[in-house]
């Protein structure tokens, strides 16, 4: 199952039109929900990039959230260091109010986002060299350990404020303008990541990831550079997670290691749950899962307050125990022909060659 398209090109483009239309009109029609919709795009980005390794390659990482936090901190350090001493800035715990000019703020933000993506990708390669020797549950636990360790390391590093965190440079202009700006960044990130992955899965590279998922030993026996594919795949995911973390840090305005930068028990688990809900190993499953999950999450927070974690936990358990293939995986099992999985003797009804083939068999 390659999962490049659901039923064909036309349906895909209709979905894109719907998503992009909603992305553009959403904050105009529902201005009160701009931040919630921004987080929805973040969730789509998280689930889609998690699926590169988790779904397509069969390496279930519980540590992708580490790249989110690394990107967040990399960006913060760059944004401050361009114009101020980072150690002094963080030691004052927000008491120093640096007035960034508009040009300084936006220049710093642009450089910060770029640095976030690059640093996260580089760290993913270094970590990958260590953990890609692990397989199955060992890889999952190993990567979870990496994420937890990153949070602890940052918490103990005074230069970046330790456990006390960093107050981010303040977005110039009105409050409404800042939330629209960060909304736009998440929207563009999610759509561009999705299109990049769509292309990636349509190449030989996507097949290599699937081959590693199905039988890594066989892939090695066929001469595949398995480590190279895994490192590049993870670095792509880390690159986007790093930028997303940087945007999120600036949107929140204050970052600290445990709850904001490395939320292993919330976003770190959500991204896995969302991909599983929609159908891992497919292009659209993580998108569908993220939207559904986000809606359910917001509803439980509104109507089941106090029990919201129980409800969410129940959803995850039911999903993992009874519905592992996810919505799109279930659909592909139920209607295989709609997903292109069918006997096909060439399409032009050439009976004579079909017969020769049968005879040859």
């Amino acid at each position, binding site marked *: 199952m390659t999962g490049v398209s659901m039923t064909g090109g036309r349906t895909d483009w209709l979905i894109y039109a719907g998503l992009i239309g909603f992305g553009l009109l959403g904050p105009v029609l529902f201005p009160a929900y701009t931040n919630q919709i921004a987080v929805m795009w973040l969730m789509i980005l998280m689930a889609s990039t998690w699926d590169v390794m988790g779904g397509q390659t069969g390496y279930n990482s519980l540590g992708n959230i580490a790249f989110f936090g690394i990107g967040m901190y990399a960006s913060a350090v760059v944004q401050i260091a361009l114009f101020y001493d980072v150690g002094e800035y963080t030691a004052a715990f927000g008491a120093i109010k640096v007035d960034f000019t508009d040009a300084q703020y936006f220049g710093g933000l642009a450089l910060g986002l770029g640095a976030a993506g690059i640093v996260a990708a580089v760290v993913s390669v270094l970590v990958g060299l260590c953990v890609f020797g692990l397989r199955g549950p060992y890889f999952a636990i190993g990567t979870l350990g990496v994420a937890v360790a990153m949070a602890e390391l940052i918490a103990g590093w005074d230069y970046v404020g330790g456990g006390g965190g960093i107050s981010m440079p303040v977005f110039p202009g009105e409050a409404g303008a800042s939330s629209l700006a960060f909304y736009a960044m998440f929207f563009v990130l999610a759509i561009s990541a999705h299109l990049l992955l769509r292309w990636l899965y349509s190449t030989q590279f996507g097949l290599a990831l699937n081959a590693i998922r199905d039988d890594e*030993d066989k892939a090695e*026996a066929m001469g595949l550079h398995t480590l190279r594919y895994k490192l590049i795949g993870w670095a792509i995911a880390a690159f986007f997670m790093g930028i997303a973390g940087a945007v999120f840090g600036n949107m929140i305005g204050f970052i600290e290691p445990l709850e904001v930068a490395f939320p292993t028990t919330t976003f770190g688990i959500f991204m896995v749950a969302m991909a599983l809900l929609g159908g891992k190993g497919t292009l659209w499953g993580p998108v569908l899962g993220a939207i559904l999950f986000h809606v359910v999450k917001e509803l439980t927070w509104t109507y089941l307050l106090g029990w919201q974690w129980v409800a969410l936990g129940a959803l995850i358990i039911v999903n993992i125990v009874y519905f592992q293939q996810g919505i799109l995986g279930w659909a592909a099992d139920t209607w295989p022909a709609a997903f292109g999985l069918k006997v096909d003797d060439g399409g032009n009804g050439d009976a004579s060659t079909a017969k020769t083939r049968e005879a040859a068999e």
Partner: protein
Amino acid sequence: MTNIIELRDVSKAYGGVQANTDVSIDVPVGKITGLIGPNGSGKTTLFNSIVGYHPIDSGSIKFEGKEISKLRVPQIARLGMLRTFQQTRIYSKMNCLDNMQISVSHREETAGSMFAPRDRGEIVERAERLLEFVGLYAKRRLVSGDLSFGQQKLLEFAMALMNQPKVLLLDEPTAGINPTLINGLIDRLKLANQELGVTLFVIEHNMRVIMNLAEQISCLAHGQLLATGTPDEIQNDQRVVDAYLGAH
């Protein structure tokens, strides 16, 4: 150079069990060579040693004159030596065509070949031709794990050919395939050898198949090389008859 693989005094022990002792076999280039022997005689161990699955204890394995006993599995595969498995291994959740397309050679990998679009161009044409060659063309869009065992074996064979190897090591290619398909498989193995120029080294228990196929056969017993010769010589070798073939 006439021998593409040269084994000299290859020994391998698993703990106290001596799986191979001083085995020396030559595989001539462009020919079909057979390897027979009772169960547990060390045939699959020898294949695993050749393709780099585990390091040998002593001896030498040369491929095209180059020592390969210290290389790792994917490196040896990229030199042009592939093996198929006794327990068939394919990419079971991918369709047959995708299985074929990812089986191209990775000898010279560039960014261009890593990110080449699939389902078009020379690769997919060759994949479809080979699927037709093994009789799986109509099933090319089916998930390969849903095929019958025999069809999966044919797919695995086609995947190996897709890689354009110089040598193919086949571990019991006819095991589990129904008798009517076996003749077709023998023909295809011979065609691959003659027309594609692939040297074959085959483990086989079906004596009719191996005697028909191979030009030279080696027989192992208790991890040691018992005899090497033409099918006729092997069939009439008293040691081979005693150890393996049995009296008729």
